[in-house]
């Protein structure tokens, strides 16, 4: 029994350290990966540009047609993500 408890204590220490180390590596891997991708594979700035210059990717000044800015931002972002920055919104029709 005493030996078993001793083993269980060792497993507690080793187990928690391992889990922390692995999740630290998850964080580290993620951080490094993000930096590498940001440096070499960054998408051209799109969403912000869409909103600030509506004439480039959104054909008509939609804000002036009663579409709230936040809704417009959501639509532009969605199209941007799905089409990987290639899609352009020509018009939005509301029912």
């Amino acid at each position, binding site marked *: *029994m005493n030996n*078993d*408890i001793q*083993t*269980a*204590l*060792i*497993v*507690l220490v*080793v*187990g*928690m350290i*391992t*889990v*922390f*180390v*692995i*999740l*630290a*590596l*998850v*964080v580290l*891997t*993620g*951080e490094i*990966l*993000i*930096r590498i*991708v*940001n440096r070499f*594979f*960054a*998408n051209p700035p799109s969403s912000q540009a869409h909103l600030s210059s509506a004439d480039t990717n959104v054909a008509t000044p939609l804000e002036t047609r009663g579409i709230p800015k936040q809704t417009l931002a959501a639509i532009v972002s969605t199209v941007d*993500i799905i089409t*990987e920055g290639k899609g352009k919104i020509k018009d939005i029709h509301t029912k």
Partner: protein
Amino acid sequence: MNILERLFEMTALGELIESPLTLVMFALAFVLLYLGIKKRFEPLLLVPIAFGLLLANFPGGQMNVIQATADNGLLKMTILEIAKEYGIMNMLYYLLIKTGLLPPLIFLGVGAMTDFGPMLRNLRLAFFGAAAQIGIFTVLISAVAMGFTLKQAGALGIIGGADGPTAIYTSIVLAPELLGPIAIAAYSYMALVPVIIPFVVRFTTTESELKIHMKKQEKLYPSKTKIKNLRTVKIIFPIALGTIVSLLVPSSVPLVGMLLFGNLIKEIGSDTNRLFKAASETIMNTATIFLGLCVGATMTADTFLNSQTLMIVVGGFIAFAVSIFGGIMAVKIYNIFSKKKINPLIGATGLSAVPMASRVANDIALKYDPSNHILQYAMSSNISGVIGSAVAAGVLISFLS
């Protein structure tokens, strides 16, 4: 009269009278079916488990799983011989469960349905997924003190990871004789996450802590790195992480490896869409059905109705509660040293139970501040909890098997 006697013998009624404890198992099956169907407690697994339990306890049905011992020679039989001698449920059990095939297949499906996006956006919160594994190891010690063997204690402790497939996988390897009660306890407590998390949170946090507004903190202390191409990061991440974890904790590869492969085929997109659909629907659903039925079939009156089952139920609850407590305490310690405060509910979601734990935490946060939406932050530690519990299972298996 002779005909009546033979008719009576043909039915299972005689055997039911001889072993009345079977009726208790029927009652348990009906309760689990009620919880799964009516109360919607993890119905995808609780319903097959409950029905498997029912099938296993029909006398003469040959649907109960028989554990292999040195005497019955089951381990030396071929699958065909097992099917012929002990019925199809034993064949399924020894083919799919005993080989450890189904839990990794379920992890494949879980990976295909997991989005690492919230975790990648809030990477530092992933640490709390590690703190919330403390329940696994503390219950391991308590269970040994209560008289369980080390292997059994390890299988019991893994309930604290709040991850059904991980609990089943660990039990298969370490203590297959406890598979039934451990699976029931694991899935029952996962279904009771909306009760257990608020219960622990009530005793361990203050109102001001629960009002910590994550978005306001984010505005006050913004993250330094913004992701400029999330899709590429999401594709490379499972490959890189899989390689690292495989090198450091090889025994967790069957679970973590399949999880990350499932995630990769999801993130690649349209080119692997067919694989993604197969993993997240066809394979996942098939594996879930057979896993549930086989686990249920391990539970007969002889193997289930004993003091060990009661201790597993109690121990499982403690493991769960300690894990939540561990996550909350880790956030509290972090908040002492950091300017950027974190809502302790983020720590409470460090156990797996994705996404229910996050939803529950979000609901609690909204109760204290209707503008405090913490779901995306909670998902970060919640997803890391899945990896954490799989790694913890790997450690238990390496040390104790």
